[in-house]
């Protein structure tokens, strides 16, 4: 049982050291966000006009934003035609 007590001690130390370290690490990260990032955010604000293009960029598509492949355009005008024909609207 001596061995187990030894192991318990080790596990306890690990638990303590681990939690202290995790909290310390993530706390420094908080400081980092509140100081460095906050300053950067003020110094380099997002250009307003870019907001739209950024949204497009994040889209899962592989294509460069803005480019619409010719096949899609073809598909669309075809579909529009079809849709109108089916719905009798003109």
């Amino acid at each position, binding site marked *: 049982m001596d061995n187990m007590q030894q192991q318990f001690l080790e596990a306890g130390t690990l638990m303590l050291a681990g939690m202290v370290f995790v909290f310390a690490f993530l706390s*420094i990260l908080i400081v980092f966000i509140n100081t460095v990032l906050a300053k950067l955010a003020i110094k380099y604000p997002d250009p307003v006009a870019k907001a739209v293009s950024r949204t497009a960029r994040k889209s899962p598509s592989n294509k460069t934003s803005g480019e619409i492949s010719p096949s899609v355009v073809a598909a669309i005008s075809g579909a529009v035609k079809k849709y109108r024909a089916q719905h009798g609207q003109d």
Partner: protein
Amino acid sequence: MESLNTLWLSTGLANFEFGQVVMMLVGCGLLYLAIARNFEPLLLLPMGFGSILTNIPVAGFSEVGGLLHYIYYAGVDTGIFPLLIFMGVGAMTDFGALIANPKTLLLGAAAQFGIFATLFGAIALNAIPGMEFSLKDASAIAIIGGADGPTAIFLASKLAPELLGAIAVAAYSYMALVPIIQPPIMKALTNEEERKIEMAQLRPVTKIEKIVFPLGVLLMTIFFLPAATPLVGMFCLGNLMRESGVVDRLSSTAQNELINIVTIFLGLGVGSKLSAEAFLNVETLGILGLGAVAFSIGTASGVLMAKVMNKLSKTPINPLIGAAGVSAVPMAARVANKVGLQANPHNFLLMHAMGPNVAGVLGSAVAAGILLALVG
């Protein structure tokens, strides 16, 4: 005649061992969970399939020259596959909610108590005859409490490869069970009033913050915990590719084709460790039990930490979002949102819970680094 006899001797029926049959049933069970119950199917489906293949008699999938042998040693044993998955996850992760509300990092820290308490528990289980966990084994098991699949696989492949199969099964199963495990704990530790707390809207986060954040995280990891840099580094690389906005085609590939290819192989490779000798023993029961305990403790510590912070903070914090600190992205955040809506139909916690949720990913990668540094 000789030919027919050779054929018979080469059939599975003539060569089955009992343990192999049981492990195939385990594999079928994983497939059932993946397909019918939607338990983390992206990993559990190939993993269940891999565990069937590896237990086929005569076929030798996991022996030298077998497909699963190549996959395991090229990608899982080296750690390459979990690291590539982590890169893809980084490319999928938006740290906006965390940067907007940085104190939620403490929730991600608190939830890691699930890991370290389980480490203690695993050593305690050694009192039971038949269980014999070394400190390395205990560490690999404890990481299940981190609720992060690739982290668990990476650590287990380094510290306790023979337990890898059971640990992966436990980690992914409990991650899938988050919507069942967490709500009772969350409700037990909070009262109606707390669950009704609405939180202030998050401020917008600028592009420069999102770009510098992964670099800052990497830098701190380099300074304080180099053992965690493989995991944290690949994660930050993925996130930097995403946020930099200059390598969208790489970011897209990391999030889609590459992570898909690697996921198939990782699942098969991990499944190949589900052999009868490695899985069919009392220690597996211990691992499954400890995993459930780890999740519960992690959830509870997250919620309790959030309660404390709510008391101390000027702006209100709904304690429910503490539960998301275990990671299990984005399931845990959705659970927090759902429980919050039950108490107050106008209370949308999803974005607020994303902060602790992604903090939990960082927290468990840090915890894995600590275990590697001290035990590995």
